[in-house]
């Protein structure tokens, strides 16, 4: 009888211990990483608008992904390639144009409040022109996809071998605010590496210039951990 009681007590204690461990330890988060993480960014940049509606290629802004480990956050100067002349959304511009026509005046330049932040980061006024009184201060973007320090991931080897950005990052072109879609755990990486290793050139959404042949997909630990 005392044996049964002990076993019950032990199980109960284990259960409580497991619960405490689950809810008190931050480490437990490592199990599923930061899946679903959607942090607020310093300005409401929309991937849905730029990559989705306007169809701008991922690599136009994240050009580092093709040639280096890091995809990188583009410098604000790159935004100015377009936003030097585009200062507001099409809807707002059309409204202003209509209003101006009705009132029989010339359309004013309008600047969306979000783009004002971009211009301010470059030391420019709301009209997009350089303004001496504004101190340039880079936007502090919040990193969404963050791997642990003991893992090394290389964007270029994946991108140049035909792995579409969406395979890992999910449907970014439909996200207003970027969310971490995959779990980005080791099992998640290995799943793909194993299936690629078997089928060599599995049919994926590939880019035109991608090599699809002779892929050596490593499952060596030291490929990522060193």
């Amino acid at each position, binding site marked *: 009888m005392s044996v049964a009681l002990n076993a019950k007590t032990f199980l109960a204690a284990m259960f409580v211990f497991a619960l405490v461990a689950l809810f008190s330890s931050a480490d437990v988060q490592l199990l599923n990483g930061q899946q679903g993480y959607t942090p607020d960014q310093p300005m409401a940049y929309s991937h849905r608008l730029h990559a989705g509606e306007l169809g701008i290629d991922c690599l136009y802004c994240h050009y580092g992904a093709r*040639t280096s480990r890091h995809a990188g956050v583009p410098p604000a100067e790159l935004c100015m390639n377009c936003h030097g002349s585009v200062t507001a959304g099409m809807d707002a511009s059309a409204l202003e144009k209509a209003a101006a026509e009705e009132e029989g005046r010339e359309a004013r330049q309008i600047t969306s409040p979000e783009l004002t932040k971009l211009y301010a980061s470059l030391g420019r006024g709301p009209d997009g022109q350089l303004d001496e009184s504004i101190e340039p201060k880079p936007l502090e973007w919040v990193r969404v996809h963050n791997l642990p*320090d*003991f893992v*090394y991931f*290389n964007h*270029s*080897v994946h991108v*140049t071998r035909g792995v579409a950005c969406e395979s890992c990052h999910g449907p970014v072109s439909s996200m207003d605010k970027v969310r971490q879609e995959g779990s980005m755990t080791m099992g998640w990486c290995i799943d793909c590496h194993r299936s690629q290793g078997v089928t060599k050139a599995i049919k994926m959404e590939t880019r035109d210039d991608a090599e699809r042949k002779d892929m*050596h997909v490593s499952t*060596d*630990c*030291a*490929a990522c*951990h*060193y």
Partner: protein
Amino acid sequence: MSSTTRRDLLGGLSAAALGLGLPSLAQEGEEQAEGLAPEPNDSAAPSAKRANWGMVIDLDLCTGCSACVVSCRSENNIPLNGRADEARGCEIDWMSLLPLKNGGSSAADSAGAEGEHADPSEFIPIPCMHCDNPACIKVCPVNATYLNDEGLVAQIWDRCIGCRYCMTACPYSRRSFNWKHPEWAEEHRNLINPDVATRPDGVVEKCTFCYHRIRTAKEKARLDGREVQDSELQQLPACASVCPPRAITFGDLNDPESEVAHLAASPRARRLLEHLGTKPKVVYLSRDRREAPRSKAR
């Protein structure tokens, strides 16, 4: 104290191996040849061309300047724990530079050589031997260390449970245990190399042949649509890249055209403790130090 003992032991071992290496080379020529150019691993058969990384260290060129030791520390984020730890035998050492007791096979010989300060420039740099038949991987209970398909004895820090069996098994003492969490002084923190993970306390660590540099070179070559050139590899690891007399050469032993394969075939080639059958892939070039005078080197 224990550190001194370890050093003495290693020094003695190296002296014995180098002093007595030549006769054993002659006798076991066949085994030697097999060891230096190992057959391609069958398990890696699909891609026929697989590298087999190896290193040649020319002891006749080594001046004992310690640049390899310093650059290894700096490249691989090995913390400087100070003299106190070294005295306790807790220092972390991937590349060691040990004085070579010239040809001393007995204690009396060694003492004599030391007493005369016969040749102050005789040192032996010892990185991980990356054996083809490593003793360390056989004792690891969690597969944290293994021989990868490019012939490197890899150690996965995050998998290691810190049992230290591998340290006991390694006949070259090329493994170190992290007795405490690595720390850097504030002014040194910016020197941490982002390409190499820092190791937490409680795990064993070792030389990786600067695997991150190998990978970077391969990835760069792949982007350029070419093979990695031997010229890029020769001075690739941190120790080799800084060696002033270029005594350290790195490369692919499977590539018969590579500099390292040429050097490994030299009659001066010998390896440490090869009678143990570990088949180390670090090859030392050294004239026969028992009798030949320096002028007859090569």
